[in-house]
C-alpha cells in the first residue's frame, strides 16, 4: 500500500475497491435487475459458465450498479440451454435461449442498458 496523497487518488481507490463490494451492495438493492443463468447439468453442458462469465464481465465493464447475476436451476427447457432470464422489478421476466457468449454481451448492452428486447431469441415471457 502506498500513501494516498489527494482526494483524486482516494476516489480512484474507491472505484477499484467497488469492484469487489458491488456484488454485495447491489444485492442489498431491492429494485435491482436480476439476471439468472440456468446452471443445472444441462445448462453447464451447453456452456452456461462462459455465458455467466461474459455477463459478469460486461456488467463490470459498463459499471452497472443495479444488476445482479445469479445461477438458477433447470427450468425444464434443456433443449434451449444456455438460458438467460432477465427479471426486472415490475416488468416481469424475459427468457432468452441458446445464449452464446456474444449474445450474452448483447443482452447487457441492448436489453439492460438500452432497453431494447432481443425479440429473435426470446423463448419465453412471464408477467
Amino acid at each position, binding site marked *: 500500500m502506498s500513501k494516498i496523497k*489527494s*482526494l483524486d487518488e*482516494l476516489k480512484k481507490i474507491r472505484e477499484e475497491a*467497488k469492484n469487489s463490494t458491488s*456484488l454485495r451492495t447491489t444485492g442489498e438493492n431491492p429494485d435491482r435487475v436480476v439476471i439468472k*443463468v440456468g446452471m*443445472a447439468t444441462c445448462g453447464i453442458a451447453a456452456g452456461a459458465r462462459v455465458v455467466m462469465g461474459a455477463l*459478469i464481465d460486461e456488467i463490470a465493464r459498463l459499471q452497472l450498479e443495479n444488476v445482479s447475476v445469479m445461477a*438458477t436451476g433447470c427450468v425444464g427447457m434443456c433443449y434451449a440451454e444456455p438460458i438467460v432470464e432477465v427479471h426486472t422489478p415490475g416488468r416481469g421476466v424475459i427468457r432468452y435461449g441458446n445464449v452464446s457468449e456474444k449474445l450474452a454481451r448483447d443482452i447487457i448492452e441492448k436489453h439492460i442498458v438500452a432497453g431494447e428486447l432481443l425479440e429473435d431469441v426470446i423463448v419465453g415471457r412471464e408477467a
Partner: protein
Amino acid sequence: MDRFRMHILICGGTGCKASEADGVKAALRLSIEKNGMSREAQVVTTGCFGFCEQGPIVKVYPDNVFYVHVTEKDADLIVKEHVVKGRPVESLMFHDANDGASISEHRSMPFYQSQVRIALRNCGIIDPEKIDDYIALDGYQALAKVLTEMTPEETTKEIIDSGLRGRGGAGFPTGVKWETTRKAQDDKKYVVCNADEGDPGAFMDRSILEGDPHSVLEAMAIAGYAIGANEGVIYIRAEYPLAVERLNIAISQAEEYGLLGEDILGTGFSFKIRLNLGAGAFVCGEETALLNSIQGTRGEPRVKPPFPAQKGLWDKPTVINNVETYANVCPIINNGAEWFRKTGTDKCPGTKVFALAGKINNVGLVEVPMGIKLSDIVYKIGGGIRNAKKFKSLQTGGPSGGCISTENLDIEITYETLQSVGSMMGSGGMIVMDEDDCMVNIAKYYLDFTLEESCGKCTPCRVGNTRLYEMLDDITKGRGKMEYLDELEQLGEVIKDCSLCGLGQTAPNPVLSTLKYFRDEYEEHILHKRCPAKACKDLLRFFVIPEKCIGCTLCARNCPVSCISGDRKVVHEIDQSRCIKCGECFEKCPKEAIARE
C-alpha cells in the same frame, strides 16, 4: 480478469464467533475448493449481522439469501446446492415463528423490517479487516470532504445542525460539545473515544468496533479537524480482544494509506490515534474517571465543572464521545444535516442501537429510528415474549435505568420520554422481563452491580446504596418490613441528589422505578412472605400434593439432600426443615404432584 460471482459472508462478531463461526468458515472454504468453485465464489468475514439469536449466520450474495444456525456440516450443502447449482437451501433459511414459512431475504424478516441502519450501515456488509472495503462504501470521503471543502467552523456547524446527541447515555448535543472545545484557546487539544461499554448485557459499541472500526477512526479525525486537535485516544476495555485487534489492524491500514498520520491527503492536517486499554471498571466509563484512568491515576470521577471541553485530558480541552456517536458522524458529513434529520424526532434526530435481550424471541442488536414505540421493539422486532409467557417489564439504561411497565410501553423512545417514566436511554441495553421475573430481585441484582462498581469516593453512593441493598435483601428473604418502602424511596432520592457522578446519581433508579410501578410485588413479599414470580428462593416452599402422587420415588432419588421420604407406591413427603429449595423434585415429577409456592 477473474471476478467472483458470489460472495459468502459469515459473521465474525463475538456473538457468532462464540457460536462456532470459525469452523463454518473453514468448512465453507474447503467445500468451495473441493467443488472447483475457488475462482467463482469467495468467503468474506464481516461484522455482526445483529440477529445473534440465529447465529452463526451466513449470507450469500448477490442473491441476498440469509442462512441461520449454520453448522460445519451444512457448509457442503450450501456450496453444492446454492453455489454450484443456484438452488438456495430452504431448510437453512429463517423460519417465521408464527406460520413456519421460510424467509430468504433478511429485509423481509420482521426483525429487520422496522430497522434503519446508520451507525451499523457497514456492519455485516464489509470485511472490517480490509480498508478497501470501507473505502468502496464511501469510507474516508467525509474526512476528505471536510479537509478540502469545509472549515472547522463549518464542520462543527454541520454536526450542530444535524441535532446529533451523545449515544453514551446522557444525550448531550455533540455539535455543542465540539463548538465549546473548538473555541477553547490552547496549544494542545485531544479527541477521546469512550469505548468502555460496561453495562451488563450491552454490546452495541463492541459490535460497531468489530464490524466497522474505520467509521470511528474517520469520525475522530473529523472531530480533530473541527476542534483543532491532532491526537486521539480510544479508551477500550481489555475484555474486548477482538475489537482491540480489529482497531489495531484498522489503525495501521489507515496509517499506511496516509489517512491517519502526518499531512493527510496533502492538506497539512495531521492526526494520530492510539488505544488505551481499560481494566474493566464500570465507573471508568464516566468521562472524567476515564480521563483520570488514561492519565494513569485512580479511575475516580472529577468534579464538574470544569468540563472536559475546557479541562480534559492532561487538563487540555478535550472532546469525548461515545463509539456510536462517532459512528453517526461520517454519514452526516457526507449526506448533510438535513438528511440526518429526516430520521427520528425533532429533538432526537437519527437512530439508536439497542442490544435486545432477556425473555424475548429475537435476541440481538437492533438499530431503530428515535421515536419508535417501545412496544414495536418488543413485539414487532423482538417477536414477542418467549414461550408465550406474559410481558412484565422492559429494563432500559442498564444499572442506571429503570423498569418500564406495560402501561408505558406505548411511549415513543427519546432521552426525555424514557426519563419521564423513571428510566433512561443509557448506552442501549434493553432487557425484556416476563411473569417469571421478580421485580424486587431484579432491583437487587442491579444494585449489587453498582455497589460492586462504586468507586467509593462519596458516602451517599458507597454507604447509601449498601443500605438500599440490605433492605432489598431482607425483603427477598422474608424479613422485610412495610416501613422499608418509604425508607427506600427517601434514601434513594438522597443518594441521587448527593452523589458526585452519574453512577451514584442513577444507582437508585432500578429500585425507585420498580417501587413505583410494581409496589404490589414488594408488598406481597413483605406482608405475605410470598414471591409472586416464584423467583425468591427463600420464600418458596415445595410440597407434595397427596392426591396426585403415585409414589414413583423419582423425586426422592433426585433430591440432592435426601429430604424426601416415602416408600414405593406410597405418597411421598418433603421435610421442609431440610429442603434447600433447589427445585429438582419439581422438575422431575412425572405427575406434576409437586407444588411450588
